[in-house]
Structures are given as structure tokens and as C-alpha cells.
């Protein structure tokens, strides 16, 4: 009874978290629209949406893997996951435009199949590359920390 009701409810029902998704999603959607306005589709293929989806898939791969390596999904890590992951990259990327454009392009045969399958395939590779980048960054950080702790006594001696 003394506990705040929000502390017991599942993450997706807590207003502060839904608010973070709203902020991130607004910024992500604005970024997507800015890019599609700057690069109008040429020859009927929506390259801007393709690029947005692939870039967003890469970013989410980096983010989720990096956060998982830093510790359990709680506190600041959970807030970052919802703000940047669920919100920003979720709002930035889009499946509805991918599906609608694929359906429209299917009238032109191979172009539609190529666009749909190509996005899913390249997006998957981008996610994998994002995860690999997070692993590499973590490794570099870990190596730096290890070197510092090894160096520390020596620099202490010289003082």
C-alpha cells in the first residue's frame, strides 16, 4: 500500500516511460520526414525510406547491445532504451511505408520484390553490424580500462 502504484505496474503502463517513448518517437519521426523531404524518391524507388530503415536498424543494434553489456535493464539504461530505442529509432524507422511501397511496386514485378526483400536483408546485416560495432567498442573500452589499472601503480611509483 505504501508503494507508489506506478512502481508495481508493468513498464509499458508507466506514464513516465510512455512519455519518453513519445519524446523519442516525435524526434525520430521528425528526422525521418526531414530526410524524405530532402531526398525525394527517384525512379519510383523510395531510397530515403530504405536508408532511414537501414540506418535505424544499425543504430538500434548498437544501442541495445551496448546497453545489455553495461548491465540489467533498469534505471538510466532502461530510460535510454525507451527514449532512443523504442522512441527515436522506432519512430525513425517504419514498416508501414516499406509494406505500402512494396505493395505498390509489386505492380512493376521484380522492383517491388527487390525493394522489400532488399530492405529486410540489408536491414538485417545493418543490425548485425551495429551489434558487432557495440562489441568492438566494448572491447576497446575494456582494453583501455585494463591498461589504465596496469599502468596506475607505475605512474604512482614515479611520483
Amino acid at each position: 500500500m505504501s508503494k507508489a502504484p506506478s512502481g508495481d505496474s508493468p513498464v509499458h503502463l508507466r506514464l513516465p516511460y510512455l512519455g519518453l517513448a513519445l519524446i523519442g518517437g516525435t524526434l525520430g519521426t521528425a528526422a525521418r520526414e526531414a530526410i524524405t523531404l530532402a531526398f525525394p524518391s527517384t525512379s519510383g524507388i523510395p531510397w530515403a525510406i530504405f536508408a532511414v530503415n537501414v540506418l535505424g536498424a544499425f543504430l538500434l543494434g548498437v544501442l541495445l547491445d551496448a546497453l545489455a553489456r553495461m548491465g540489467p535493464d533498469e534505471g538510466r539504461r532502461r530510460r535510454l532504451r525507451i527514449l532512443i530505442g523504442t522512441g527515436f529509432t522506432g519512430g525513425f524507422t517504419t514498416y508501414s511505408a516499406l509494406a505500402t511501397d512494396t505493395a505498390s511496386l509489386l505492380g512493376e514485378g521484380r522492383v517491388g520484390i527487390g525493394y522489400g526483400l532488399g530492405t529486410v536483408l540489408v536491414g538485417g546485416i545493418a543490425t548485425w553490424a551495429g551489434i558487432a560495432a557495440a562489441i568492438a567498442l566494448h572491447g576497446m573500452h575494456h582494453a583501455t580500462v585494463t591498461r589504465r589499472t596496469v599502468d596506475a601503480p607505475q605512474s604512482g611509483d614515479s611520483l
Partner: protein
Amino acid sequence: MTALVFIALALAGGLGASARMLLDGFITSRMSGVMPWGTIAINVSGSLGLGLLTGLVGSQILSEAWQLIIGTGFLGGYTTFSTASFETIRLVQERKWATSLVNALGTLVTATAAAGLGLRIGGLA
């Protein structure tokens, strides 16, 4: 596009992202197994919605501003490619090859079919 439409479109995308979080949490908490049903349901329903909306604009029932705010904004923010892709790769990492392939291709085929159906229905109106 006017600045007002741009801002409304972006905010609608934020609302879409919150709606996605809510619905995904609701579905995921009621499902067991490795298949990400929440994301699948969101992407298929959002694709049906955008197809319908696009078809309606073609029939000149809906203005382009509403198409931008509800379609590009709300449904764009509601559906997500990044999470769908991440879930596919996570299934690959867990060596659930078949489930991963079914998730990736199944979502693409079903969402495209839903969008195509929406385009047809919207175009008839």
C-alpha cells in the same frame, strides 16, 4: 508542407511510438514462446492502415495533410523496422534459424499483403 503540418506529423509519430509500446507490452505479456507477436501485429495492422489511407487519398476522400499526419506521422511512428530487424537477428544469435526466417519473411509478406488489401479497399471508396 507547412510548419504546422510538419510539427503535427512529428507529434503524431510520438503518439504512434507510445501506442506501439503500450500494445507491444500488452501482447508480449500475454504470449509465450520466441516469436515476437507484438511487433508482428503492430507492423501488419499499421501497414493495413497506411494502405487504406493511401487508397483513400487516391480517391480524393482524404486531404494530403491528413495523409501526412496520420499516415507518415502516426502509422510511421507506430510501426517499426528497427525492432523487427533486431528481433530477427536475436533469433539468429539464438540459432533459431527457422523462426528467424519465418519472422523476417512472414512479416514482410503479411504486411505487404495487408497494405495491398488496404490500397484496394481504399481505392474502391
